[in-house]
């Protein structure tokens, strides 16, 4: 497991110096501690972003156990929950992100 999947730290993967980016995807993933499901979600999502959004996304991973007030603030019900802040409209995907097609559909990412 790489450093990237550590819990409790906001992982920010900056878009590379790619200039061909239209709109950067701003994603927030809320997980609950280092449960297998949380870890699975993070790695699944990272892999997906690498593949489909390479260089044009920002991902924050939030541990709700450490910031429980964010659960109410973001009106979360399920965990893990991925919120796509940008581009509009805001979308949510719940689950461990194992169903890649669903995640892509939920995020409105065209798989050309």
């Amino acid at each position, binding site marked *: 497991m790489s450093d990237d999947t550590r819990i409790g730290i906001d992982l920010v993967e900056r878009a590379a110096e790619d200039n061909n980016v239209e709109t950067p995807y701003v994603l927030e993933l809320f997980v*609950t501690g280092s449960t297998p499901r949380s870890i699975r979600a993070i790695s699944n999502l990272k892999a997906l972003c690498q593949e489909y959004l390479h260089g044009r996304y920002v991902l924050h991973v939030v541990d709700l156990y450490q910031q*429980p007030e964010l659960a109410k603030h973001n009106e979360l019900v*399920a*965990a893990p*929950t991925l919120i796509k802040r940008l581009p509009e409209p805001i*979308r*949510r995907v*719940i*689950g*461990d992100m194992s169903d890649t097609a669903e995640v892509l559909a939920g995020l409105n990412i065209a798989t050309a």
Partner: protein
Amino acid sequence: MGTPRLRSPLVTTTLNSPTRRPLSKARTGIAGFDDVTGGGLPQGRPTLVCGYAGCGKTLFAMEFLVRGATQFGETGVFVSFEESESDLVENVTSIGFDLTGLIEENLIRLDQITINRADMSEAGEYDLEAVFIRIGHAIDSIGARRIVLDTLETLFGGFTNEGILRSELQRLFRWLKDRGITAVITAERGGGSLTRQGLEEYVSDCVILLDHRVIDQVSTRRMRIVKYRGSLHGTNEYPFLIDVDGITVMPLSASCLDYGTSSERVSTGVKGLDAMMGGQGLYRGSSVLLSGTAGTGKTSLAAHFALASSAAEKCVYFAFQESPSQIIRNMRSIGLDLTPRLNSGRLEIVSARPSHYGLEMHLSTMLKKIDSFSPQSIVLDPLSSFVSAGSVSDAKAMVVRLVDTLKSRGITAYFTSVTLGGVALEATDMEISSLMDTWLFVKQDESNGERNRLLYVLKSRGMNHSNQVREFLITEEGIQLREVYRGPHGVLTGTARVALENRERAEAALHLEESLREKSLVEVRRKMIEAQIAALSAELLACEVESDRRGKSIEQSRAQDVEARESRARSRGYVLNGDQK
């Protein structure tokens, strides 16, 4: 009726186990509910409150929290899955709960959990840990002991994977139990089961069913404790109502007949009527039913009682047909002035339209009035109008509860009841008469083209009461009972009575005249006879005088004869007889 007093064998076994500890209960503070459940909801366990939409689930739950925070020092969290926080605050403010204040004081916390399916998709495994975190955070932030999950089932609309949801709910209830939080979970009824999603499977400690029925356009709310594990509870359907003070659950009746009785007497306000009841009137704290057809003078009799009982004590007159001013005016026309009593504050007239609200509301309003005014007696005129606010059996149940309460407080109650003409008179009130200690009956007797009012005591427990049917008049000086008058064909009333009285009076006069005439005749004869006697005795006297005179002259002549003879003999020279000395 009443709470079952026997423990079921199962419960007994559980309670006898070594670890037995009485189930501790969290008081709800909801009026009447803690009585019915023997102390409230199971402490530290979840309770399911279910019912159709609009039956008062949310209010029940909210009152549980608010009273917990204000009366029992237990803070609470309200998790709403339906209504927004501002809506909730607004709704309960209308029934007198200052939710905003409680939230500011950190006694109550609101959290709205909504799921918007439209902008959400599912990709793989998930759980509801976020809900747990939110609830846990809310609980910890104010140290809550109570929680409400208002319509948890809404969650089922938000997720496609029902299996996950069910296992998560199970986990949620276990989690709440482990934390020792007293929880109220509301759920909507659906189909034939208690809840749409079968939540009762998970929450099995205590299940309460609320119901809101409309029968004949009158709504009645009812509550039933379907299940209460490890505790005795009333199994009846208890009516409840929602008013400005929140929910009030009303036990159908006191479970036992154990109120004290008084042998003190109170007047009915009508002298003749008191006389009919052992000469002293009613027992204090007894219940009187006065039945009669329309226009027989029931209200007038009741007003007499109200006037008499407000002389030194306090009385409330509940009127369900007339307004206070109408009663005052009408009673003034028969010489009863209620105004001084009203002004002195010892008498109060409360008028309401029976159909205005349901029976429970009426009962509660009356009990509240009795609580605040604390009268020694009440008048309810007429009781029968409650039938129009509910069914006969509901009305009866209400009267049972009212009579129970009044008796337990020693309040003398005077009920009037309108019976329908044509129906067997006594049969109409059979339903409630058994509750009454005294049953008076007024009726109109129609004969000779007129109607006359009659009154009799049908029953009166514990006293030697008159068996007579008495005629009474409503005069300008109030109600007056007339003396019993029995003619040759039974009791006579009205003009028949007057006619007979007149005839008898005439006969008596005639009799007198005759006897007078006879008397004078005798006198005349006596005088005549006396005159005759006088004449005769005069005659007798005359006779006697004459005979005396005659006797004397005979004597004289005889003496002369003797003398002549003697002189002749002397002249002849011899003594005539031997007796001559």
